């Protein structure tokens, strides 16, 4: 399998990531990270952007990588946390907060599951000079867990719970991730989706549609349900 991996470009990036590093990334490249990443998802976005609470730290100074995830974590004897597995959560639900969030925090890399709609890249990420990396699998929780060397801090744990709290992880050789969108807004998922869509109609050839339709659903299989 090493040969198959050889077909893909690989990058190892130091965080906080620089604009020059980001410029090298192209859709489909494999990325590993070293430095500090933070987690934020709906709980944090709501608090900061809708309830107008202050960020609990000067995030821009510490990390410019937002991981859409919630870890399997439990307190350890030293008063810190043991991180078991780490898996991303589906990002499409968060696009509505992204523009304001990127403005507020200067975040340049979003890591999550499944990417965001193509338009979100062009309209939101590209103007902020940000890219999207997707986790792999998506169940590579153990590999990603290995890449987390230390919990640097956790904020709002009591109010938001383990899944929604803002975690700061010190990571090393953290990955693999795959570049979905680059600085120009090209999307790997969209490109692959287009090609697969082209072959879908023939799968249904000769199969009679069911007698009872379903109300209110799209029947266009080129569309995504998300």
């Amino acid at each position, binding site marked *: 399998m090493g040969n*198959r991996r050889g077909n893909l470009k690989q990058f190892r990036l130091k965080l906080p990531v620089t604009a020059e590093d980001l410029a090298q990334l192209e859709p489909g490249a494999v990325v590993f990270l070293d430095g500090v990443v933070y987690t934020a998802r709906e709980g944090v976005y709501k608090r900061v952007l809708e309830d107008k609470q202050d960020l609990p730290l000067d995030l821009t100074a510490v990390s410019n990588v937002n991981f859409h995830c919630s870890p399997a974590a439990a307190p350890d004897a030293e008063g810190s946390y043991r991180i078991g597995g780490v898996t991303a959560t589906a990002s499409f639900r968060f696009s509505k907060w992204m523009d304001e969030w990127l403005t507020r925090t200067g975040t340049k890399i979003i890591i999550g599951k499944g990417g965001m709609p193509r338009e979100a890249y062009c309209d939101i990420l590209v103007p902020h000079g940000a890219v999207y990396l997707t986790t792999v699998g998506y169940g*590579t929780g153990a590999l990603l867990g290995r890449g987390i060397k230390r919990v640097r801090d956790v904020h709002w744990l009591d109010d938001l719970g383990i899944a929604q709290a803002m975690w700061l992880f010190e990571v090393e050789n953290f990955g693999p991730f795959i570049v979905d969108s680059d600085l120009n807004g090209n999307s790997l998922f969209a490109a692959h989706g287009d090609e697969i869509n082209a072959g879908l109609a023939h799968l249904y050839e000769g199969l009679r549609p069911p007698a009872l339709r379903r109300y209110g659903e799209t029947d266009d299989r080129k569309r995504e349900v998300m």
Partner: protein
Amino acid sequence: MIANRKIEEAAYQIMTNAAIDIPQDYLDGIKGMIDLEQGDLSAFVLQSMVDNWEAATEDRRPMCADTGLPRYYVKVGNEARVDAGFVGIEKSLRSATARATNDVPLRPNRVHPLWRTEHNNNVGINAPEVEWSFEPGADWVDITTVHKGGLFGTDYRMLFPGDGIDGIKRFYLDTLIAFGKRGLACQPAIVGVGLGGSKDTCMQLGKQAACLRTVGDRNPDPEIAALEKELKEIGNKIGMGAMGFIGSSMVVDCHIEVGHTHTGGMPMSVHTFCLSSRRATARIYADGSIAYRTDPQWFTPYMRRETIGWETAEEISSNSA
């Protein structure tokens, strides 16, 4: 008489096994798919998953941080007796879930659907689910835990007899395509199809077909077995692989379970058991010894009995010999 603490010991152990160790049948199935996969990215994803499962087993950490929804399937031998009774078993299963959540650790996933409140231990109202079945002529208790990923890849549709196999194929394709895009279903998956029953049993059968049968296992009805194979092939010809990238790795295997249904209908459910196909089983014998395995052996001849009586496994094999 089985001591209830043995039930709890076994339940705690399978919670841990399921979360960490990928079942061998599924691993072999995925390795077989890597060899056939022409899409570079899809193959890269599968190879990364194999690396991930190795890391999980080596480090004793969960293979996926999304714990899914841990739940139990209990099969009680008709001659088995547990000192604390059925209520004692259910209590042990809840306590084992809470302890394993803290110790492995597992992410506490279970929250109240409206208030989003939680107990940080994967225990709550109707959680973990415990489904019961029975086995004639046995004095053991089998406990299986399944940690199935929760959000994407399952659907139900009322089809009608006139829709026929075409209708089944269409709905099957619809579900795989809808949830396969961007890999929302975390495919390749073991796909379970439930046919018949009422809506709830249809869902239940499809889910059990996905989660409680191993890769390579075939339905004893030869025509259903042939349909299982055909659906597997159809799924792998969609053109989509892992994460929805171009490729052929969608379906590791397809299992169909049926239930007699309303004469006018043919309800169908589809369930996908994701890349973290977490299942583990323990058999607690009457003498208190425990044997662990990854094949739940849930669908016994008794489970699939068609009339009032039933045949034993031995009778079935001697009849067909």
